[in-house]
């Protein structure tokens, strides 16, 4: 009993170092993880899919996809997996950990960047470093997917307008024959500069 306790603590310490969560938070998340996985070691898409609260979320697919995206798991790998363990789960969650009182400005900036990267990865589904028009359209479509058939047609126009806006902000003077391939992360940062990415 005692041994397992220290082992668990040791493990927690390890995770805490990696993710920046506190013990308390890790414990809570672990409970939730077990609840979601049905006391299994790993969690699958189906587990997350069945969360009732998510049912109405228009971007549910993308959120769940982000959990299984290796890019978000600090592993320097690409592609997605079918099952994730608690550690990976925690890694993904760590993008959204709240800053505490001791967080310095640089750390905050780093966290902000991390979060933006997370967002960017969600948009950039084929991982080529740019959000192309097709990908952007898909994002907007998903966003409007709960609003019925009005959404479909307009989504395209909105994505086009948004893309155009990004292009005009970042590449002000473009000849008619040039081609703006898509939003790179730097441009994405530029676009998102004005809102404060703070979260739970």
């Amino acid at each position, binding site marked *: 009993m005692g041994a397992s306790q220290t082992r668990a603590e040791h493990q927690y310490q390890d995770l805490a170092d990696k993710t920046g969560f506190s013990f308390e938070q890790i414990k809570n*998340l672990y409970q*939730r993880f077990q*609840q*979601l996985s049905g006391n299994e070691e790993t969690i699958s898409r189906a587990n*997350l899919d069945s*969360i009732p*609260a*998510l049912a*109405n*979320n*228009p*971007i549910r697919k993308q*959120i769940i996809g982000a*959990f299984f995206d290796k890019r978000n798991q600090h592993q320097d790998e690409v592609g997605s997996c079918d099952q994730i363990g608690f550690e990976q789960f925690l890694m993904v*969650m760590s993008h*959204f950990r*709240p*800053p505490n*009182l001791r967080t310095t400005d640089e750390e905050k900036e780093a966290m902000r960047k991390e979060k933006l990267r997370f*967002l960017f990865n*969600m948009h950039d589904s084929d991982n080529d470093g740019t959000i192309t*028009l097709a990908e952007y359209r898909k*994002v*907007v479509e998903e*966003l*409007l997917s709960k*609003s*019925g058939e*009005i*959404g479909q*047609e*307009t989504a395209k*126009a*909105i994505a*086009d*307008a*948004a*893309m*155009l*806006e*990004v*292009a*005009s*902000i970042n*590449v*002000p*003077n*473009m*000849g*008619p024959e*040039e*081609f*703006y391939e898509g939003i790179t992360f730097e441009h994405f940062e530029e*676009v*998102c500069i*004005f*809102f404060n990415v*703070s*979260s*739970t």
Partner: protein
Amino acid sequence: MPARRDSHSPAGKSLPERGLLLLIVLVLLQGSVLPLGATSSPDTTRNVDNRQVKEEKYNYTKKAFPVLTLDYHHIQAPFEISLWILLASLMKLASSLSVACDTGAMTEHQPVAREDTALLTGQEAQVLQGPDGQRGTTWLDWLSVRTQLKGFHLIPRLSGIVPESCLLITVGLLVGGLIKLAGEDVPPVLDSRLFFLCLLPPIILDAGYFLPIRPFMENLGTILMFAVVGTLWNAFFIGGLLYAVCQIQPANPSILHKIELLPCLLFGSIISAVDPVAVLAVFEEIHINELLHILVFGESLLNDAVTVVLYHLFEEYSGAGTVTVLDCFLGIISFLVVSIGGVLVGVIYGLLAAFTSRFTSHVRVIEPLFVFVYAYMAYLSAEVFHLSGIMALIACGATMRPYVEANISHKSHTTVKYFLKMWSSVSETLIFIFLGVATVDGPHHWNWTFVTVTVLLCLVSRVIGVVGLTYVINKFRIVKLTTKDQFIIAYGGLRGAIAFSLGFLLDNKLFPMREMFLTAIITVVFFTVFVQGMTIQPLVELLAVKKKQEAKRTINEEIHTQFLDHLLTGIEDICGHYGHHHWKDKLNRFNKKYVKKCLIAGERSKEPQLIAFYHKMEFKQAIEMVESGGGFKMPSAMPSTVSMQNIQPKKPPPAKPAEKAEKAPSQLPKGREEEIRKILRSNLQRTRLRLRSYNRHTLVADPFEEGFDMNNYLTVPAAPPDSPTMCRARLSSGKDTDFKPAQQQKGNKTSPDPQSYRAKPESDSVPTIQVDLASPQSPDSVNVMDEFRRAGQQQRGGGRGEEDQGLMMRPHKTGEGADGKDPQKLTRCLSDPGPSADEEEDQPFLP
């Protein structure tokens, strides 16, 4: 002070203009002096005398019918009110002009202050003459004085340094002083009834209606903490310590010894509340970042409930002299009732207003009225029960806004906006002027100890309160409040006219110290408004506090904000942690599902926010395209030559109008062209309908009415279009097509002259897309042109007349052909489409 208005006149004004200004000043003078003399004359006997004399006269000379009679008494009250308002408006004008003058012409002599004295001597003379004196001679005197002093502009300008509120108070002081000098009684201008029933509501409604909901809700916890706990702390700290100080100095008997604890606490509760009027006035000028603004301003709004309860509680019990535990308990209950009740009343009226606006599509003219009347009713209803009227107004305005905006027409929206701004700014000006007048008037009892201690305690308790509370709040906040933020919050705690009015309400018998209280309150108000108000701007600069970002809301921002919202909700759901995103999402869904359906007419209720936003934006861009033609002012940030082509090379998708017009209109892809035509076609239908349904109560003018004077504007003289057929004929002849070249000039370079874009020769060699232009039997295309032309004319003629943009060219929402079928929507469009994009409101309305 009135001279401030024409202070810029020597700066390159011609003589006649100067004369005109002089005239205005004269009128103003008459305006400001006459009512003072009249209102201040308590001797109604004299008026009665006059009347008697007059009547006697009638009796004697009962010969002829009196062709011209003078009965000032008849119109006295409204006349004086209007004159006060006129004075306030002119002051506003004056301060804005002098600011403009200051910033503009630095080398000019500043004719400000000296002329003031000149004017004031004139005023004085008039006042001395009394309302019944020979004004003519006075004016002459005054004129001579003024001309004599015209050259001396010695005292340097103030308005660059001094905030408007300070200037206005000074004006009030001077006016009050003059009345005093004239030996008249100062009218009780800052009477509590007048203040709370007439002057305060417009300001609060304006604040509530345009409350930035998102930041407000995100910081609600902090705001409530400051507003409730902070105000309580301030009240008790100030009251308690003040009492303690009063009890010291036992040696020499002083009046302060007689003050009991409860009056002290009452005084503390009056003086501790941050004043929304003062905060608004000062913060509007310093352009601080949104977070700090909403924190201080939100606090000033929400602390009303605490103040009301404390005030009534202490007033009630100061007679009895003791407060029991039960009373405290009741006080807490009362606080909950007052605040929650106020909000409830507001929400109910807000929903009623929204519901009413659903049905106003046929009577557009009175639409804005509902907003005002319901809001005022909410305020009054809350005041009936001594609930917090301010909270009711805020709740009412914030509740009704999203629904009302979706329902009312674009023009009505503009009307609402302008009326709110107009009323609130006049009220604000009046309040500050009255504050000055009341200061001169009030029976003062200056007690050095009391006043000094009060000012000190106010400062100290504010600082301690803010620092202490922030320490607690920061534990819960994600974006922590820095030391700088805390400093600005503490320093921005201005007191104002509400405190004064509350003090004014005190009963003299119950509170023998009333005069001393009033003096102290006024001192604190003056101290905060003058010292803090004047120094806060330099301090903000010095500390390099983040300023407000003037960024326009872009479509990307909207997309990502929404995406992030959903993402965070999703993450919270996965965590199993129900944070505020979760509840916000629930609320949003409830709103979309039920509330919007009930309160918003037509299909707009189903429109998702993103789409609504997009439509607004698209509409704006289309307008801008038409408006600009050649010389284009890029709506978003920077000029760009990026077009749809650049982001998607394969098939030519619809290009965005803004970019297209900006770049030589070389690419107008087929799809886009079709879209524009659809929009315009449907607008034409509206025009037809408009022509038919014109009557006195629809604000929609004859579409050609505008065309008449706009024609003067055109470079090519054209006969006023008198009938659609005429237009069509002319259009078909290709003479009067404003928009056509924008489509036509494929390959042509955009002409440098912005006006001449319409006059581009139509070279037949250039491939044009105005397919049907030459064939009058195809009405669609012609109508397209017609519509566009008129829209363009309006745009150019009306300058930035945004209300007129609404007339046409509403980008289509969904089914393009749905127009004719849906009568409700049709009538909606009849006058114009809904409110335009949000950034309009974000523009500083006042200079």
